[in-house]
């Protein structure tokens, strides 16, 4: 088991019960697949891992799943009419409105008196942090009972890798050929500021943590938001076999921190604890230099990002101490 998941995952899991927990988890996770073979995800796509686990976790609750997919890579992965690769009822939405269409779906279910359905809205970072943020903010403020998942590949990948609000600084995209100048927009914290019952960040490189978060979300009534960093080999330009590694590097360098905010209570997730609490941080350079999208980044820029990361980690440390984001 330790070999399967790698040393780091195992260490991260110590905090939640160690190897025993891993075994239990593997036994529990449904073997059924709701994303079928022949889907058109690129080789090495980690966003697809996130979707698969979302659907498995939903299944494990014993309820039905209704999936909404915004305009993004995950809609292309369904394949072309008359085929579809997703084996749950799925409503593809226009780009800006994934959350508002979900609120309509939820309201209809409510009016039918059905309480046995997990409504999952799945959209990319562009569809969430940019064009869709108004619909999302409105839907969660109205308190609809659904889970919104943003899988974050840090660019508009479906249209060929343009910058999004979630693109990190200095990343080269086709609309920021010299590197993005601005910061990454922090939507999980914006969602937490809405005071909704559950907000979490995750990464498919830590599948137990990811799966547990889905399950936690499904157990809570009201709007839930999970933001998942999903490294994309095509846009980030790294070998297709390195997706999981890249996610781990993101967490280990502190470029991405895993946490939950449940009913206002902030909790660091196991894989990020050593990074934030013990200061066991891998230098960001290792992460940045492993990806083609940062080609040409200068030493000063690396330095600046490193500083930014330290500030973030400090902030998370304080949040962990007071058990609140603010």
């Amino acid at each position, binding site marked *: 088991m330790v070999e399967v998941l790698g040393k780091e995952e195992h260490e991260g899991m110590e905090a939640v019960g160690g190897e025993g927990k891993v075994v239990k988890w593997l036994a529990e996770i449904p073997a059924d697949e709701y994303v079928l073979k022949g889907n*058109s995800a*690129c*080789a090495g796509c980690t966003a697809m891992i996130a979707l698969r686990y979302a659907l498995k976790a939903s299944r494990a609750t014993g309820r039905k799943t209704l999936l909404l997919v915004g305009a993004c890579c995950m809609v*292309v992965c369904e394949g072309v009419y008359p085929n579809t690769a997703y084996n749950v009822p799925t409503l593809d939405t226009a780009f800006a409105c994934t959350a508002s269409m979900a609120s309509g779906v939820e309201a209809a279910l409510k009016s039918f008196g059905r309480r046995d359905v997990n409504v999952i809205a799945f959209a990319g970072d562009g569809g969430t942090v940019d064009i869709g943020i108004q619909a999302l903010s409105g839907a969660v403020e109205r308190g609809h009972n659904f889970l919104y998942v943003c899988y974050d590949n840090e660019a508009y990948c479906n249209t060929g890798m343009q910058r999004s609000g979630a693109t990190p600084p200095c990343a080269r995209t086709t609309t920021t050929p010299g590197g993005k100048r601005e910061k990454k927009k922090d939507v999980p914290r914006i969602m937490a500021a809405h005071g909704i019952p559950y907000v979490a960040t995750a990464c498919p490189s830590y599948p137990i943590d990811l799966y547990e978060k889905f399950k936690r979300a499904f157990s809570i009534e009201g709007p839930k938001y999970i933001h998942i960093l999903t490294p994309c080999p*095509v846009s980030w330009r790294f070998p297709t076999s390195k997706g999981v590694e890249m996610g781990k590097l993101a967490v280990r360098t502190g470029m991405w921190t895993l946490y939950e905010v449940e009913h206002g209570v902030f909790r660091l997730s196991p894989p990020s604890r050593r990074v934030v609490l013990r200061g066991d941080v891998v230098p960001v350079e290792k992460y940045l230099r492993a990806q083609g999208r940062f080609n040409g980044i200068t030493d000063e820029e690396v330095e600046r990002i490193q500083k930014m990361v330290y500030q973030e980690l400090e902030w998370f440390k304080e949040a962990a101490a007071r058990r609140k984001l603010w």
Partner: protein
Amino acid sequence: MVWSMSESDEGKHEIEIRIHSRGGQGGVTAAKMLAVAASLEGKYSTAFSIYGAERRGSPTASFTRISNREIRKYSQIRKPDCVIVMDPTIASVVDVTEGLKPGGKLLINVGNNSTDLERFRDYEVYAVDATRVSLRFDLKVAGIPVLNVPMVGAAARLGIISLDSAKQAILKVLGGGSVVTSLARYAGTTALDGTESLPSTMRKNLMAAELAYKETKRLNGSG
């Protein structure tokens, strides 16, 4: 060469070419190089490819139309006069001769595959090992041998474009985003004058095109 594009030639003003490659191999660039080469010879040309969700490594097709007059066709090419197969492994998964007119030209990169060429005997078949040519000059992008350049050189064997204009087109297309051609069209003599001053990768590309041209073998056919 049987193929001229004179107006008198039974209204045959036009040559349609289909190029088979895999996503990421530069098939569109090959189509563009052929079109630019034709354009340098004073002809009209367009290049395009099959659009949609192309994934790296999956079979795809690109097209070139060459004509003596303005090209007004925007529909797909279903009955090409000529097919170029850039990837040696594609002929076993894709029907590369689909729609190819009988007697049409087929240029195949045979690579080190033992492609069964016998099944193409209805066509005029040309074979070249473009992969070897590419590797010989160490032409690689992201670790993958560059096939479009040698294939465009080899295509000059089909009599559609001359080797000189093929080489000029390669230079222009690889030489930067904008393919500037002087309107005083190519005169047809000293395509490679002054290549000594070119960067070495550019020279290698040109040499690869030339070698592929030389190594291309006509296997059967009438004309």
